[in-house]
């Protein structure tokens, strides 16, 4: 027996459930994308689920916010460049669209997508990360409108959104502690109090562990450089201002580049790049770059990731905003003529740094020997 009004009841029930779903998820708004934008302390102000979903939300937010400036790059830019620093400057409004573990090929692909999504785009600031140029190719493809639509629908109408809304509500009610989350500007918020010394202590074993795919010998990643040329061409064709930022590099990382013989490769692509585009470097040896290791550091989160404080000074320097206490050589524009001396200074600095840190050097070389032995054992006869 089927009630005559069953199908009508089914439709009405569906409408009712859908309404409840939308009211709940758009109010709690676990991903911070709701048009409603309620921020209710103890209910939804903290958004621990707005994390690790950069590839979903960033294209959507570029489309939604229509920024004038976007940042492209890796987790370094993601964690350290707060676009609100540029408020009131010619770059505003800015948005940090960088992707953790992003490659140059991915940057090129995302730039093409952002150009379609944001007609207001005027300036692109691209972070350079040295391992992107000395490793293997890491492809990227331009997102389609269908993917963009699917991802956007997913953020608003999915079972994950429902579950994450519940999780967000419970977290706000039960915990209330600040959580890692992507800020509205696209950069990562890190709750204070994380130990910074740990990652430095583990660097040698980490960089030579089997899970890290960095090479033991540097080679020129032609695909990455082609992607850079692609970015330059896309920017030129669309009348965009393009700025490349070479972020700070700590002594630990520079020692690694030195140990795999990367300076020649780095010099080559910096010379080629600086001849074609604007490149600013923040990795000149100075007291900020080589901040002493401690559990609470001001300018570093770990060996590769510099802090928001460092990023704030970088953006302020770039935008010509007032700063205080910066080293004289904090920001340096690279040109083809200056690249060789720039590399020489870094090489000399890392030699001095290694002499001053013999314990690290011993740990590093020991880990490297073990890694090489294991790699040789895996080689087919």
């Amino acid at each position, binding site marked *: 027996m*089927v009630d005559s009004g069953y199908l009508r009841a089914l439709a009405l029930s569906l409408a009712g459930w859908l309404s409840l779903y939308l009211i709940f998820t758009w109010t709690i708004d676990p991903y911070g994308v709701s048009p409603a934008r309620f921020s209710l302390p103890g209910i939804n102000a903290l958004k621990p689920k707005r994390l690790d979903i950069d590839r979903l939300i960033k294209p959507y937010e570029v489309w939604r916010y229509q920024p004038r400036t976007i940042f492209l790059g890796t987790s370094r830019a993601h964690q350290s460049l707060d676009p609100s620093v540029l408020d009131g400057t010619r770059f505003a409004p800015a948005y940090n669209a960088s992707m953790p573990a992003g490659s140059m090929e991915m940057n090129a692909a995302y730039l093409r997508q952002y150009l379609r999504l944001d007609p207001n785009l005027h300036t692109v600031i691209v972070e350079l990360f040295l391992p992107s140029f000395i490793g293997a190719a890491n492809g990227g493809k331009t997102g389609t409108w269908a993917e963009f639509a699917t991802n956007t629908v997913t953020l608003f109408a999915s079972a994950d959104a429902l579950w994450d809304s519940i999780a967000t509500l419970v977290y706000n009610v039960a915990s209330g502690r600040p959580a890692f989350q992507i800020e509205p500007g696209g950069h990562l918020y890190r709750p204070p109090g994380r130990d910074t010394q740990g990652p430095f202590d583990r660097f040698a074993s980490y960089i030579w562990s089997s899970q890290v795919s960095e090479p033991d010998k540097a080679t020129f990643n032609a695909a990455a450089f082609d992607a850079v040329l692609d970015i330059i061409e896309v920017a030129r064709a669309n009348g965009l201002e393009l700025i490349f930022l070479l972020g700070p590099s700590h002594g630990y990382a520079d020692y690694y580049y030195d140990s795999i013989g990367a300076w020649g490769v780095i010099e080559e692509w910096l010379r080629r790049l600086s001849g074609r585009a604007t490149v600013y470097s923040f990795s000149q040896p100075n007291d900020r770059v080589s901040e002493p290791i401690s559990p609470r550091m001001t300018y570093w989160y770990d060996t590769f990731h510099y802090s928001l404080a460092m990023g704030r000074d970088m953006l302020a320097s770039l935008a010509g905003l007032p700063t205080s206490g910066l080293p004289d050589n904090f920001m340096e524009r690279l040109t083809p003529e200056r690249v060789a001396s720039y590399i020489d200074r870094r090489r000399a600095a890392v030699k001095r740094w290694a002499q001053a840190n013999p314990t690290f050097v011993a740990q590093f070389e020991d880990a490297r020997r073990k890694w090489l032995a294991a790699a040789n054992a895996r080689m087919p006869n």
Partner: protein
Amino acid sequence: MLFNSYVFIFCFLPVVLAGYALLRRASNLLWPIIWLVLASFVYYAWWRPEFLLLLLFSITVNFGFGTLIIDGRLSRGQSRAVLTIGIIFNLCLLGFFKYAGFFVANVDLVFGLHWAVPTIILPIGISFITFQKIAFLVDAHRGLVRNFTLLNYAFFVTFFPQLIAGPITHHSEIMPQIGPSQRRDLAADIAVGLSIFVVGLFKKVVVADSLAVYADAGYATVKTGHPLDTASAWVAVLSYSFQLYYDFSAYSDMAVGLARMFGFQLPVNFYSPYKSASIIDFWRRWHITLSRFLRDYLYIPLGGNRRGTVRRYLNLGIVMLLGGLWHGANWTFVLWGGIHGLMLAVNHAWRALPVSRSVAFKTRLADGLAIAMTFTAVTLAWVLFRSETFADARTMFAYLLPLTLEPSGWPSFWGLLHGQFTDIRSVLALTEWFRPRELWPPVLPPDYLATTPRPVGLFLLCVGLATFSFPNTYQIFGRFKPALGLPDETVANGILRRLDWRIAVVVAGLFLLSVLRLSHVSPFLYYQF
């Protein structure tokens, strides 16, 4: 086009239903059937349009064979010859598309001929379609076919609810329904069919797809040569066992529900197989129409059980080996079928013993143990079914059965228990709960599946309890006669007496959850390690 896709649910199905409802008002009763046939062509062509040509060619040729056989002008011997040619034609099509690469690879392996293994794309549903057409030709030869026209035949073969993955129907099951289907209460059929479809959709996207994450991660870990601890191996194997169960159950429900929306009943294909107390019973509940096909068109023609015990077991073995091969062109499927054949033979041998009829084996405890044994045997056999090579299967079996007290052995179950059920802080934090993530096996530690994705232990427990204690879809909707071939008591004692607003609220909730589950927020994996 998948049943569990936006395009099917929100575009294809509404359009086809609306067109069908309109055409039912026409005076010519052929129009609704023509509409369904055309819709089925679109459905089949959605993935690769070129395969529609293959389907049309196959339908035309088989219609020709059928016409020759049914026409009545052939002698019995001539009819048998046409039947034989027809069967060979269909098997050749199946053999070319499904087994050519397998055959070449094995010949190359044995004789070292260095042949290039051809890459042939398998037309979707060809295994089911082939069996259905063979069954039709045999039925035609046996004089069981009525109302044979090209349109009816095309409808019988292509009716989209059963086109891709069964159930494998007989011509005699569908044809008598064509006329009456036009006179049925369409709204009531849509109500019943839609409700059953939603139950299937929920099983597929909420249950089966959630389990798939863990099963895939476990088997991929083995494939990439990384270790698993014992508990994680069991998580992977049980996840796959239940995934397959709910996937097939879901598909069967959706097929039955869809057919019912158009006023048709398909034969029951899946009837709580994990509640079986024996392997014999299992094959009477799992993929029922395949078992029926193998019995009627292979086992019985081979002699069945009429030629002595040894021949009977031999026939069983042949049937199950071929049944295994039908599932896929890989020796793992053949061995899986062989193991089931062996288990069936042992089961029949046991039943032949007088002691098996003892009252000691009629108790609820014995029944429960038999169900547990059957489930365990079937689940372990699925390891072969899921593994891509014998080596992978052997490795997984080794992880399942450790003879060690090292942390990766038996003690790993403590990690599973602790990780799933006793970490209260994780429950409060809700960091991982009921959030299956795509896992990247090469970088996962051996105990990852057992200890880190918190839902899996509780989820498996809930799924297991539901599987063994909940009524199946037919027991719930039995009074609405959802399928052909249901037990009388299922029809008479169906739990739902009427579909009213309360059921509508539940079904609508299940539908919304299922549709929401069709898309995923997939957090970036980089941060998991």
